[in-house]
């Protein structure tokens, strides 16, 4: 019996060499069982095992942390995108208001003479090569000769191209593409808001087709 047990535990110790080491000096235990009731166990982790365990734990922790970091970055991105979306929408509404005011109260051929004439400098079939910034009311547009001219500054809650101390980080570009050849009654307006976050550049672009809704 003693021989069989010795054989089994020798085999068990060999199998356990890859995991937590449980050293059992059974030879003594078996032989001493007749002398003493408790076997002598020498149990514990070796340094290598601890390092392996810590490595596994650290790798899993890094995984969780990176997911969390991207979650926080996404929340910031959502915030910036929300602001950008409303600023882009404002650009469309601004041009729409110029159209309605021109068509309602302009003289002669208001669609061509008042509305499209005001946007002629932002006429950009190639898209985004010749953008404009929006003026503070009274309504009008100004060509951005370089991208920084379309930069929006933040002054007491007011986003505008009027230069102030606080740079909002957003650039808003407006441009127009006539639909069809000649004096057409349809234009497509683009409003793009760009911003930089982390190491990447992002943008939101809205577009809307505006029509000459008045019959002269």
């Amino acid at each position, binding site marked *: 019996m003693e021989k069989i047990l010795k054989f089994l535990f020798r085999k068990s110790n060999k199998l356990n060499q890859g995991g937590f080491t449980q050293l059992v000096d059974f030879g003594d235990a078996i032989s001493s069982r007749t002398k003493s009731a408790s076997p002598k166990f020498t149990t514990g982790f070796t340094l290598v095992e*601890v390092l392996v365990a810590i490595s596994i734990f*650290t790798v899993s922790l890094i995984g969780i942390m990176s997911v*969390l970091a991207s979650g*926080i970055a996404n929340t910031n991105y959502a*915030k910036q995108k929300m602001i950008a979306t*409303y600023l882009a929408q404002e650009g469309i*509404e601004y041009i729409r208001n110029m159209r*309605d*005011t021109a068509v*309602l109260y302009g003289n002669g051929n208001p669609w061509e003479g008042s509305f499209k004439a005001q946007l002629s400098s932002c006429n950009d079939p190639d898209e985004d090569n010749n953008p404009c910034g929006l003026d503070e009311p009274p309504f009008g547009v100004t060509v951005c000769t370089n991208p920084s001219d379309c930069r929006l500054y933040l002054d007491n809650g007011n986003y505008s191209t009027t230069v102030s101390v606080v740079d909002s980080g957003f650039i808003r570009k407006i441009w127009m593409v006539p639909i069809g050849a000649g004096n057409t009654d349809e234009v497509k307006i683009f409003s793009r808001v760009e911003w930089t976050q982390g190491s990447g550049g992002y943008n939101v672009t809205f577009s809307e087709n505006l029509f000459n809704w008045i019959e002269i």
Partner: protein
Amino acid sequence: MISVSIFLIIIMVGMGALLNAHRLHQKSNNMRSILDNLSFIMEDMSRSLRTGYNYHCIDSTNDDDLFGDVSVYSCENGGGGISFDSTSDPVSRWIYFIGDCGDNTNGICKSVDGSDLIQLVPSEVTISSASSFTVIGAEPPPNEQQPFVTIRLVGEINIKNVVTPFSLQTSVSQRNIDI
């Protein structure tokens, strides 16, 4: 003994990091919900104003009489509120007002046909006095300008003592033709 000590220290530090991560995750989630809420309020106000008409700016000259004084139309320098006719069925007079809705916090209040002011923002959001409604061209003809409203919301979100400032702005052009 040394191995176990190292293991315990690392595990304790790691568990601390995990707990912090959990707390950050919760804050991030809360922030997302509040941003969604703010976005919804902005979208709701924009849509109501876009489809509404007969705008009246509520500024310092008439803010004691939200519904009564309709002599003020535009306010190019911005006012604390706006009243307008909503296209809801039946047509009703709506008010959006930035200030104390009766709960001692600065928020965005809404009132329909003189009903009590309803607070639209959650308690974590404080709207500052820099917020405003700028109304242009709301006067009846012969004023030659299609009505235009700019909404500015400035404030901060306070989640468990973490303060995040925000500054939102959008504009709407009245869809009804100004004739």
